[in-house]
Every structure is written in C-alpha cells, then in structure tokens.
C-alpha cells in the first residue's frame, strides 16, 4: 500500500511501485483529467505538479511521488478560477481540449516560479506540451494575460 497526497487529500493505493503515477491517477483513483498522450514524457498531456514542479506523470513511478504533494488539473483551483483558467476562457484557447489539462499545469508551474515570464520564457516552459489542434498562439496570449492578472497586486500594491 502506498500513501499519496493528491490535491490536498490523503489517498491510499495498492499499486506496483513502478506503475507510472498517470495510471494510478487514472485507473486506480479515477482522476481522469490527467491525460495519456505518449507514455514517454514527450507530449506533456499528463503534466501534474509534484511539490509545485511540473512533472510528466506518464514517466514518474508512483513510488517517487510518495511523500510529495501532487496537484492535478482537478486541484488547480477550487472553482475553476485560477488566473490561467480564466485567461484560457477569455482567449477561448481550447479546440478539442484534450491536451489542455497538461498545458494549464505546465503554465501554472511556470507562473508560480516566474510571475512575469517573457515570451521566450513562456515558449521555453511550454515547449514540452504538444497541441495537435494548434492552439499555441492562444496559449501564449492567455499566459501573458494571466501573468498580467497575477502581477496586478504587486503593481498596484500600496
């Protein structure tokens, strides 16, 4: 039995320690917001946070996540109102939507460590996430918008 902390909740799973976190989330815990895309860390569809850092759940053995804090798309915000989720809505980013959980999780990890990324930093941080529908221009625009929202308190702070 393995003890995991996912989206602030403690969960116990009976899994092979080598099972990738992705399949633990999806098959054992029915947290299906995290998607399978390649199984090799090549496309980013399975991106989640481990202690605030973006990781590819398809390539991370679940044993490596024991003791850490795991955040999935389901736990990114309580009401779907993370600045990035609001910006994604404003820019109407998704087409098919399949990769967007991973895109949002990569973007959230970026903004958490760098609230005001440059365009080059955005592209660098998002380069591991493939979108086959081609929503890249809107992803970049939405991250810029969300970054603006996030830095407002700092700019306007008295």
């Amino acid at each position: 039995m393995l003890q995991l902390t996912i989206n602030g909740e403690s969960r116990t799973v009976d899994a092979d320690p080598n099972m990738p976190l992705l399949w633990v989330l999806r098959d054992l815990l029915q947290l299906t917001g995290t998607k399978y895309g390649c199984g090799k860390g090549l496309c980013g569809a399975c991106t989640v946070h481990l202690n605030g850092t973006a990781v590819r759940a398809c390539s991370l053995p679940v044993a490596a996540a024991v003791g850490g804090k795991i955040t999935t798309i389901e736990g990114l915000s309580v009401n779907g109102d993370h600045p990035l989720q609001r910006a994604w809505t404003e820019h109407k980013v998704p087409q098919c939507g399949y990769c967007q959980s991973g895109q949002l999780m990569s973007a959230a990890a970026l903004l958490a460590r760098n609230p005001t990324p440059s365009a080059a930093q955005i592209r660098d941080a998002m380069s591991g996430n493939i979108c086959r529908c081609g929503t890249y221009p809107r992803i970049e625009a939405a991250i810029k918008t969300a970054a603006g929202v996030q830095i407002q308190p700092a700019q306007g702070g008295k």
Partner: protein
Amino acid sequence: MANFKVVNRREFLKLSGLSAVGISATGLALQASLPVHAEWTGASGSALSLNVFVHIATDDQVTIVAHRSEMGQGIRTGLPQIVADELDADWNKVNIVQALGDKQYGDQNTDGSRSVVGFYHTMREMGASAKAMLILAAAQAWGVKPEECVAVDHRVTHPKSQRALRYGELAERAAQLPLPDPKTLKYKSPDQFKYIGKPVPMVDLADIVRGDTTYGVDVVLPDMLHASIERCPWLGGKIQSVEDSAARKVPGVVDIIRLDGGVEPPAFVPLSGVAVLATNTWSAQQARKKLNITWTNSGHQNFDSEASMRALATQLPAASKIVRSRGDIAKGLNGAQQKMSAVYTVPHLEHATMEPPAATARMTENGCEVWACVQAPQRTQQVVAGAVGIKPEQVKVNVTLLGSAFGRKSKPDFAAEAAFLAKAVNRPVKVIWSREDAVRHGYYHAFSVQHFSGGLDQKGQLIALKAQVASPTIMSTFAPDQVYLQDFEVGQGFANMPYDIPHQQASVHATPAHTRIGWLRSVYNINHAFGVNSFIDEAAHLAGQDPLAYQLAMLGADRVVDTRNEGFEKGYNPEYPYSIARMKNALQRVKASVGWPAKVKQGEGWGVAVHHSFLSYVAVATKVVIENNRVRVTDVHIALDCGQVVNPDRVHAQMEGAVIFGLSLTLMGEISFEDGAVVQSNFDDYPLLRIQQSPNIVVTLIDSNEKHGGVGEPGVPPIAPSVTSAIAAAGGPRIRTLPVSKQLSIG
C-alpha cells in the same frame, strides 16, 4: 471474428458517406428532409420533445441535441447556436446533449468539413418549427391569432394585450401540437440573427479548463478490464503462434485473447492481434511485452515505402488512365518556348490525434453498448455489430468528446476491438491504443508521387501542363485490386486544376497499397495542392515573374471551373460552382494582408499558394528565414472564403489550427515502411510542431454571402507549397520531396 464482413465497393460508398461524386470539390449529398418527430432516448423526464433536436422542460430549460461529433471544430456549439437563434431561445437556458448513434438524426458521419454545409438549413428548420409550435400554443392559450404573437427571448408575447408566457410554460401544450408544415415556417433575415455569425464560446469550454470532461479514454464502467493489444506489424498477417505463459503471470492480468483478423481488404475490421486484459492499463502494457507471437507472412511484408516512392519518381508504371484532357498536350509541349519538369513527393502520414483511439464496451441483455471517441457513430453500430454477431440496431453507441480526430476516428476498428473483447470475457472492456499502436497501425494518408511537365510561351505563361500521379487509393482499404485513384480523389485538386492553360492532361498511374489507406484532414488535397502550387511557383521563377502576380495571371479570367467536356465528368457542381473570382479574391486578400511584395533581408523569403477544397477558397502566404541550412517559419497569413460563417471565432481557430497542422506535415511529417512495418513509433521520431516553432499567424476571414463552405479542412492544403516556395525564394533549395526536414534542419 467470423462475423467480420468485408464490404464491397458499393457498400463502402454507402457506409462511408463518400459518394462517388466525392467529399470535396465536386459535390455533396445534402440532407433530405429529416423525420422530425421521433422518440429521443436522451431526454430527462421533464423535457418535452418538439422535434428530434429540440426539447423544452417546464422549468424553461431548452435541450438541443448535438448529433455530430465534437473533435475541436466547435460543432457542438455551432449547430445548436443555429437552432437557438431560429428558436429565439436564451442561450443561457440552453443545454446541449450529445446524440447516440441513430439514423433518426440523419447523417452523423462527421467528416469532410460538411456539418454546417449539410445541416445549416435543417438546424434552422428545427428551431423555426419548434418556435412555430410554441407560438401556436400561446395563441391557443390566449384565444388569439398566432399571427398576433411573437417569440422573443425565450417567451411568446401578445403585444396587443401585453401578455407573455415563458417557453417552459408553453412546452406541454406545444408538445401536443402537430408538426407545422415546413413550407409555412418563417425564418429570420440575417439582420435579425442573434447567435448566427457571432463568436459564441464553445459549450464545453468551462469543463475543459477544469479537466472535467469525458473523452474516449476516460470512460469507467464497474468491473471493467483494461486491454492492451499487440498487433501484426504488417498488413494481412495472421497469428501463427502465441506463447503467453509469462504474460499471464504478471499481477493484474485476467485474460489473454486472440483477435484473429488479418482480412483483406481490411476495411474497418480489427487487425490481427493478441489482447492482454488486466485490472489496470499498466499491468496490461507490461504483460504485453512478455508475449511471444509469431505472425504469418503476407503480400505486404516486403513493402519499403522509400524505395517504392524512389522507383515511382524515376519511372511511372505504364498502366494508367487519363482523367482529364484539354487541348492537345503533345502539341502544347512541343510548341513551347521553354520546357520544365518536376517530380513532387509526399510521404504517408498518420493522424497523431492527441487522444489515441479508445473505446469501452459491454454486452447487454439486448446487445452491446459502446462508449467511444468516434466520428461516425452509425458506422460504429454496423462495425461493432459485425464484430459481436448482432444487428446494428442492437448496438448503442455513446459518443464521447474526441481528443482530436482528423479522420482517424471515422474508422471504428478500435470500437469493434473493445466489443469483441467484452463479449469474449463477458465483462466490460476498455481498449486504449498506446501512442506506438496509433503511429504503427493507422489508416494512413496516401503517399503521392506527381510528375509535372510544362511548356511556357514567349511571355513566360504556361501553355501546356501534363500532370501524372502515382498514389494508392482509399478504395484499396475496402475493395480488392484497387490501384487507381478514384474520381472523388482526383477531384481534390488534380483533375480539376483551375488554371487557364490551353493544353492540359492529367493521368493516374497504377499504385498498389500495402497498408490501410485512410483519409486525413483535407486528404488528397494535401498532395495535389503541393504539386500544383509548387509547379506554378517554379514556372513563375523560370519566367522571372512575381509568383503571386503569376498565380493571378494563370488563374485567368473570372469563370467557373468546368471539366465536363474534358473527360472529368465530376469536375462541375451546379450547386457550388468552383469560382475563379473567389480564388483570385482570396489571393488578393492575402496579398493585402502581407503587403506583398514585402521587403526581405538576406536569407528571408515569402511564398504563396492558393487552393479550393471542401467548397471553400484559401490563400496562404508564408515567410521563412534560413540560416546555416536551418529553416524557421516566422509568419503565415491565411485568407479564407468559406461563404457565410456561423461562428467566426471557431473559424479563426480552425485556420490557426490548420496552419500548425500544415506546418507539422510540411516540415517534419513522415511515416515510412520497412519490411512492411511502420518505422516510426512516437513523438520523438514522428514529431509535431511545438510552441517555440509556432509562427505569427494572421487570419483574414472574407465576408461573404455565398453558401456555406467547409472550414475544418480547407486551411491545410496550401500550407506546404507556401512554405517550400518561401524556402526557394529565400535562396534555399527547391523542395519537391516532403517533409522539409529531409533536406534542411528545422528551427
């Protein structure tokens, strides 16, 4: 598997929705009038049916049925927004439900960029019909004439007496009324549209950003097993032997089942394979690696795609058919001042949907129930029925969201796999293809080798053009011994080239298929737009003329393309005439967008291309920068004339997506075969464009009152030739063999 049936050509045409007149330039079978009163099984208890598509609950909630599959094109929003507009419904009180596969909805085969083309009028009729019933219900309630009543914003009002009733209050009475005669229905004029033509957000947007959606991979049933299937690497092979004792020992494995496929032609029948069924995906995948399977040989086992294409580039097979002939090609070529020739090659491609094929199935008392990311739910009923030996009407198909599709998910072989396995183990089964499975066992875009010869007059104008193509046909997947491209394939920009060239000949050359040939976003238009536009661009360079001006000149005077007297009967569509004026206008708009001819620095260049497909017209201008043999696409301007537009934001999004899809295939897309098996496996060796490679994209949506054209596909074809022409303009090599990465590195 004995029940898997191979369809013949005629059945295929029926089954696939690909009529002989084709899915593109040459015609669309539009919807006949639909049955409007039928039982809708998806309605909640309180919803009252006004017709198949419109249901209203007493609490005012309007439910609109989305009967086409959502794969990112926005159709679950676009068609209901048409209904809601004619219904005068409040969009905030509209709920969308996805239809089951059921012929009561008419054509559900979401393919060929034709959802709006085929259903715009039907959706208006459904809205207007329901509204007429609500108005009559109110008039009867008030004892007034219906003509004195108006529907506004989810209510019917009687202005004279200032009375009003909400739709919810009228639903019960309206549902009892007979259907209005369609001829009596009143429709809005465009200036009255409230939702049509507006950028209504996708109905699934809020759920997508929360990860709260159900795709094919996400379905969970009680007691369900997860299957991972090892399939024969080459087409037509059968299982010779299976040694599975090690695999059976892997914890979590429940059963191992043979899929005895390998039929030819393959149609939608599952390939030969051995399925590991386990309590979770990981166990199934691990155990699968321990299988030891030998496969029988087949006639495709020696297929080497690169060698085949090289041979075809050197020498075309003599076995051929002329599909169009105009003027006297020999005379035209012999009389030319300058001659030119070129061979253009496009490899096989795979759809690479972000969500791989996935389906979940269970046997029920009355048949089989399937949940799957399918583009064609009625076809899925038929194919699943064949897999488990029941009738199509006994198969219930629930359509999930599709994590992109591009034509792959029109082929429901994966749903048949899930159903077959569910029957075999008598438990619900979910099949998820791995990325490697998807890349290696697809329905591939057909490779193409095109030989062009041309002759220029003293002014540099092309006066003769001979076009020969060798390419496997989609029909080979469905019928034996099919080696020639069909009318619906050469009608995609090859036999109906638009240029005003007096001497033309187009021919197709025998090309056997050695894999499952399918259709991929814009299909043969990709190959033909690349060949034709490239050749025109090369002619412009040879003539020393500006390529965009040359394109306009070669298109000639405004007219309708009509090849009926030139041997290509299907090259004319009276309902949707192929207009040179619209073609030229698209070029003019992209010219204006760029400010063509734009100034460039050393190593930079612009290329232009234009193509008509799926009833729409698209011109593209692309800028590249080349440094040290490394090419980067920096800007793509795309102008689309798709007639009237339902949702401009989603049309913009489709153009953005088409640019990026087109760049992936142009720059780095290649599926190759060695020893009959696909060489590539995942995104490392079958790469897709990434965000840092994404150019600045400028979309021009041309205002038009013309009939609706397609949107999902027509943006793709002109991308490749615009890029390769830009590379030539920038001083790089003339790239005639895709992808570009064979010759230049990609920045």
